[in-house]
């Protein structure tokens, strides 16, 4: 009897697996839905993904499904292996460094004709994206949100930081939480910010001095921000929109992003359409939707990043954001990025 029960269990298990596999194949062969690679925070219930999906599906009748991207490098590596069999259509959430470092192995469709937000709108945001035109690599991507990197402190603290050298003030020793450029995008932004505002020798010396001066170099933004929120550090490298989050979600206006005389570096997030897309026309509609007023509003409110069109911020908490002096958006090559990362690694290794 026991053998019979085991036999029946085996049969039904195999059948169940076949049934599930069949669901798999159906989903994979489902040509009618657009598949979008995006980060976990984007597609979670508090991120912009679900609301974008709902509104887009309602407006167009086209289905959207998200594929969580743990890391752009890993995801694009897999896409490059899969070639024409790659699952996704659109990739969201690539910043300028991801594009420089990871996108060359993958083929992309030219979607420059879909870029609906004009240069004049960028300028009204204070954002100068002129350099994008000079880069063939970036022509295949469309920006959809941005923010500037700065330092955030509590308003009731009386640190005066107006420029990069001010970070080395004695009263700030072990007070600033940084992110490690090797493992964190804001950290990499900071590294290249230092590199672009000073000559190489000055920048290296500054980084060496900072190495000894900082509270810590966290592996990720979340750890650094956690240290700041926990009051282990008084200042943290973050985004200028971080205080807006606290204002809106926590009703706390005690956070302030700092202005720097050198100008703040900008991080822009891009989206691209894979050449191996299965549902290319529908995907292009989604790309246009993300750039629409509705799409930009959702991204701004949920992602806590600034929209490409400044008018979207009117009447919202983002409108209270002061106008910062920004550096022109710069396109870095992979070699330049890696060069500075190696300089940083050497500085860290030779520390002490």
């Amino acid at each position, binding site marked *: 009897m026991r053998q019979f029960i085991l036999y029946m269990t085996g049969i039904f298990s195999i059948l169940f697996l076949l049934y*599930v596999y069949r669901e798999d194949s159906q989903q994979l062969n489902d040509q009618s839905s657009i598949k979008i690679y995006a980060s976990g925070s984007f597609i979670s219930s508090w991120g912009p993904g679900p609301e974008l999906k709902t509104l887009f599906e309602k407006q167009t009748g086209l289905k959207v499904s998200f594929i969580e991207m743990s890391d752009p490098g890993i995801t694009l590596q897999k896409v490059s292996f899969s070639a024409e069999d*790659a699952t996704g259509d659109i990739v969201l959430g690539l910043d300028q460094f991801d594009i420089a470092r990871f996108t060359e192995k993958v083929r992309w469709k030219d979607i420059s004709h879909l870029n609906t937000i004009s240069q004049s709108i960028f300028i009204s945001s204070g954002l100068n994206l002129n350099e994008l035109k000079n880069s063939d690599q970036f022509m295949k991507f469309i920006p959809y949100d941005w923010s500037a990197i700065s330092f955030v402190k509590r308003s009731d603290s009386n640190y005066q930081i107006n420029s990069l050298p001010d970070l080395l003030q004695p009263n700030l020793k072990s007070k600033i939480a940084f992110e490690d450029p090797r493992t964190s995008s804001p950290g990499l932004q900071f590294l290249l910010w230092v590199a672009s505002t000073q000559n190489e020798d000055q920048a290296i010396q500054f980084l060496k001095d900072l190495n000894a001066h900082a509270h810590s*170099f966290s592996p990720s933004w*979340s*750890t650094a921000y956690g240290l700041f929120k926990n009051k282990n550090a008084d200042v943290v490298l973050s985004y200028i929109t971080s205080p807006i989050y606290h204002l809106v979600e926590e009703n706390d206006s005690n956070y302030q992003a700092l202005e720097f005389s050198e100008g703040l570096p900008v991080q822009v997030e891009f989206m691209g359409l894979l050449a191996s897309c299965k549902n290319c026309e529908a995907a292009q509609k989604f790309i246009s939707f993300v750039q629409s007023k509705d799409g930009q509003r959702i991204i701004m409110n949920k992602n806590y990043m600034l929209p490409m069109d400044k008018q979207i911020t009117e009447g919202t908490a983002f409108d209270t954001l002061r106008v910062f002096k920004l550096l022109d958006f710069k396109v870095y090559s992979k070699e330049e990025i890696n060069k500075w990362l190696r300089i940083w690694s050497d500085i860290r290794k030779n*520390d002490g």
Partner: protein
Amino acid sequence: MMGKINGKLLTSLLLIFFLSPVVIILYYFKINLDFPIDDFILAFKNSLIQSLATAGICLLGSVLLVPGLSRVKNKWFASMMAASLLPSLLPSIFTILIIFSYFKTFPFGHTGIILIFTMTYFGFSTVALYRAYQALVNRYAGVIDIYNVSWWDRYLKIYLPLLKQDLVNIFLIIMLGCFSSLSVPLLAGGGRGANVELLIYESIYINGQWATASLVAIIQIFLMLGLGFYLNQNRISVSARTPSIIYDFKKMNFSFIIFFIYTATYIVGYFFQVVQSFFKVDLKQLYWAEFSQALTHSFLLSLFSISIFLALSTAIIYLHYTRTRSQFLMYFLLPSSTVVGFSLYLFFPEKSSLVRELIKVSLGLNLIYFLALYKSYIQPQFSSIQSQMDVCRIYGLNFSTALRQVISPQLKSSLVISMQILFLFSFCEFALIKAAGSQILFSGVFMERLISTYRLEQGFIYSFIILCAVFLFFRITRFFIHESY
């Protein structure tokens, strides 16, 4: 039918399984040996310093505390032992924040890393050694009492040599944990903190050299293998568990107080954060629907992981039964979640069903944790069971009958403890799941998503709820274990 399976074929299959992540990555990528050797030497030196110091301090502390702890019996004891495992099980960001909050000026560098690692692993090493020690005491105490051996002589000259295998296993597991950590050396290490895992990370994300990363991971394994082999040269068998002998227990002693202080340091810090979070967060901001979905998926993951764990355990027990040489398998501990996760990501299709994702992640969990759990809890039992298995085999008892009637009753509690730990990892793991590109939401990933988007307070609250659920599971399965911690 099991009796007819070739032991050697099974060993080969297991070897392929444990090395599969590396094989998959080498299949896709070309090896590039152009990585700076002096970087590797520095990274390995740092890893070695950090891990050896941590393992040494943890074991030394455990060795000193365990005899005292075994004489204590009070109503808080079991809970304290369970709570002391928390630092090694929760995400490292919690441990980092808790420890940082105790220091005005944190001692960055090797000191800081060793401090955080020690805080993380001390509980684990004490609990593991305590269990092994209890088994010995139960077996030998009566005999030793007759010879009127002093307490100190008893411990130093009789029990410690018998515990050597356990000490080696615990030492290796702590070393492995330290080797595979990225966040702690990076954050607390200062400039000198760079370790092998960071080198692997840099190979992947900065240089885009996956194959080099895999090669470094293999070198890491072989170096650990060599160390383990060297330390394992003089294996001494450890007795199986027997019923407790009644002792003159005390309610409290110095060892208990020290261990209580250690546990309380972490727990108080953790609960302080949790309570603070409860006050700061609006209950409407808790994403219950997503959280309950994540919990359900993690529960299913735990079932799958446990099934694979049992299958692998059965395979290794079979190898012991047939006396097939398989000891070398025990050293293929794969520490790097990134390498294992990415190999699974390459191997499995991207968009798939719940079942396939569960299989993928549970394979990953077993690739990383199976050998460590097996070596800690199951292997120590084998020395006494081996003779019984030999007798079964000689008398023509087939493997399934021997497994059911002879081996399982004796290994039951060890298996249950391993399953409980795997259950907990299923709820807390996120690095592996993210690297494996899983499309299913698990509770560890959910916590990590919260933490990475300003929502640290929600992360603490959910971690607390997860721990309550896991603790409830432990209590329910506790009746399988004959003696408490």
